[in-house]
Every structure is written in structure tokens, then in C-alpha cells.
């Protein structure tokens, strides 16, 4: 069942990113939904799920990118792994923690992508990339993840467990 869910996610996420996400772009910057999805999988389902989903989602994302190297295929599983490991040390997943974590992971992802591009071909200045892509996208990713997290917490809010004491 979980595999089927991930399969649907991968099938829908990248077309969504390619076709529809431009409608919510701010100043030409679009949120990286695959990154947000992989991090949330890591936070909710642990590092193994996030690693596997990251490989599949990163691969699919690279198929639809103009880049000739497989940056997302390498990056997304790593981000999922970090998010999954981070979630182990958290008792209660709060919005602030998720915001901070995904902001940091997005900055990390952007920096690695910049370095990858700079090594492979003509590079733009890091200042320009940081100001124009890395930081705005990280903020946008963090905001989107916060909104999604709140939605998920509302949808999947489980009632307080009934114990023997509850019926006294």
C-alpha cells in the first residue's frame, strides 16, 4: 500500500512541478516540490523511505530538467536521509522545526547544485546564485513545507488514545 502511495506520488509530483508550479512562482522562483516531498517523507516515515523515494523522485526530476548531469538523483536521497535522521531526535514534530530543517536542506541543496554546475560548465557568480536562486527558493520551500505540514497534521490528527483509565 505504501509502495503504491509512493508510486502515485512520484508519478504526479514531477508533472505537477513541470506543468503547474509555474502558476505559483514568485519573481520567477518556483518551490522545489520534490525536495519538500522527500523531506516530509523523511520526517514522517524515516530515513529509509525517504532515501528510496528520493532516488525515484530525483531521477524523475532530472528527466525533466535541462541539466545534463544527474544532480537531483544524487541530492534528493541525501536530503531525505538527513531529514529522516533528524526526525529521530525529535519527540514532537513542530512547524518551526520543519521550517528550519527544510530551509537548511534547501540551502544545502542549492549550494551543492551550484557547485555541481560550476564544476561541470560555465558557472555564474555564487553571490548571484545565492541571491537569485538559492535563498529565495529555500524560503519558498520552507513556507510550502510548513503549509503542507499543517495540512498533513490536520488531516492525520489522531484522537487521544483511549486507555483503561479513560473509562473510569
Amino acid at each position: 500500500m505504501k509502495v503504491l502511495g509512493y508510486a502515485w506520488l512520484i508519478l504526479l509530483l514531477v508533472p505537477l512541478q513541470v506543468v503547474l508550479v509555474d502558476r505559483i512562482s514568485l519573481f520567477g522562483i518556483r518551490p522545489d516540490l520534490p525536495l519538500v516531498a522527500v523531506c516530509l517523507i523523511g520526517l514522517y516515515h524515516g530515513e529509509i523511505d525517504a532515501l528510496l523515494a528520493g532516488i525515484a523522485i530525483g531521477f524523475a526530476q532530472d528527466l525533466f530538467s535541462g541539466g545534463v548531469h544527474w544532480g537531483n538523483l544524487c541530492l534528493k536521497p541525501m536530503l531525505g536521509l538527513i531529514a529522516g535522521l533528524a526526525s529521530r531526535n525529535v519527540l514532537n514534530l513542530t512547524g518551526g522545526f520543519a521550517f528550519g530543517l527544510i530551509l537548511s536542506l534547501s540551502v544545502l541543496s542549492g549550494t551543492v547544485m551550484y557547485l555541481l554546475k560550476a564544476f561541470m560548465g560555465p558557472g555564474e557568480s555564487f553571490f548571484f546564485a545565492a541571491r537569485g536562486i538559492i535563498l529565495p527558493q529555500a524560503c519558498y520551500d520552507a513556507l510550502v513545507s510548513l503549509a503542507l505540514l499543517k495540512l498533513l497534521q490536520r488531516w492525520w490528527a489522531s484522537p487521544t488514545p483511549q486507555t483503561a483509565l479513560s473509562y473510569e
Partner: protein
Amino acid sequence: MISLQSIAGGKRAVLLLLLFLVVALLLLPESRQESLMVIGRPMATVIAVPLRGMEAANQTIDSLVNRYLALQHMREENLALRQHIARLQQENARLRETAQATTRLRDLLELQERLPYPTVAAQVIGLDSTNWYRSIVINKGRKNGLAADMGVVTTAGAVGRIVKAYDRFAIVLLLNDLNNAITGLVQRTRDEGIVEGTEKGLARIKYLPLLSTVKVGDQVVTSGLAGGFPRGLPIGNITKIERREAELFLSAEIALDADFAKIEEVLVITAPRESAQLPANPFTFQPAVPLTPAGETR
């Protein structure tokens, strides 16, 4: 002291007197009845004051009722008209969209008919999946004869080249991407260079000869020497020339002819070398010098 009985008897007498007076008034001839108006007119004047007030109040009530009823009717009418306007606006927008699409497709079809190379028309269905590359996704792929490195044009000129071709779609890296590089030619001076994107989303032509007489406003076209483009496809106009000391070549900034934010349909040139004769000006730009077909020597 007057007894209660005497009062009752007096009251009865007054009533009888009044009754008699009323009957007498009725029996009076008409000419005599006019004399009653002497009392009636001042009384009518006094009564007229509250009467006018009542009348005004009545009119106000009448007006309010009518307005309310009219509003009820108007509200329904307004709702119906609003729905009608919304329908008309939708229809108008749809028709405008259709008209614009028709114009774009007609221009593209005309270009396709005028270009002497085999081309495949495609629609833009998406953008790059990351923010790191300026690329578009088109709805034609290998099953339609497309392959990597084929040139992509619009009615404005060259826009990019295919970097990845799948069965049913392809990824086109745009000319304003930093990683894209094609050979270009300054049309007036015939100087060749490499056109590549800049980080600001513009383009630049590099490796122009130091003694080149290139100037601002010169048209840059594809040179046809390498890549999937034939010679003579417009790229853009030079906006700024950069001459740096101790450098062996010139470079110049180019304002691209195509509006990369509004690309909706494109033509993919599937075989740029099979050119017969390039028409004088198949594109929307006006070149200073007539174009030369691919393969023709300068």
C-alpha cells in the same frame, strides 16, 4: 347641586338637540348649507396640517414599499445580468484566446511553409523541473522524429536546442541559459562567434575578432556551422559591446528577438542541412542584409 338624574336628563336633552340640528341641517336648502363652510374652512385648514404630514408619511411608506418591491425584482434581475455578464466575459476570454492562438498558429504555419527545412511543430507543455536551468518541455519526442541537438525556432527566430529527447516529449534548453552555446554570426560584418546565455537571462556573443567593426544594433543570426541550426536564423540584436584590455577577442551583449517568457508553440528543425533555398525573410524581424541559405559560402 345638580343631581345625577338631572345630568342624565340634560345629556339626553343635548343629544336630542344635536340630532334635531343634524336633521335640520340635512333638511336645509343647499344655499343655506354653504353657511356651514364658515366654520368648516378654518377647521379644514387646521386639519390640513396633520393631513399633509400623514400624506408625506404615506408617500414615504409607499415609496419604501415600492422601492423594496422594485429592489426585490432588481436583485433578481441584477443576479441574472451578472451571470450573463460572467458568461459573456468567459466567452469573450475564450474567443480572444482562440483568436490569439489562431494568429500564433497561422504565423507558425506560414513560417513552417516558408522554411526550406523539414520541421515539426510542437507545443510547450512545461518548464524546467528546477530553478537552475532555463529550459522548456515540448509535447513531441523521438516518435515524431526529434533528437538531441536539433534546433528549435519560433516566428521570432531561434530559441534553443533539444538536450533530451524521449518518446513523447523533449527538453529544450533555451538560448538564454548559461549552459547553452551555439555558433552565431553578426549579419552585417559576417564575424562569427559563440552565442551563450548569461546569468541575467540575456545572451552574449563571444570570440568576435578584435578588429571587428560590429556596432550596437547589428543583427546576430545563426552561423549554421555547428549544432542543429541552419545559417541565417535570427537570434537577436547587439545592445552592448565589451572591449577589454589584454583580451584577444571582443564580446557583445545581445537582446534576444524571441520573448522567452511567452513561448507557447515552436518549430523543431529536424534536418538543417537539407536546405534548398532560404526565402528572403521568413521571420518577423527585418534584417539589414539578406539571409543566405545553409551551406552557401560567404
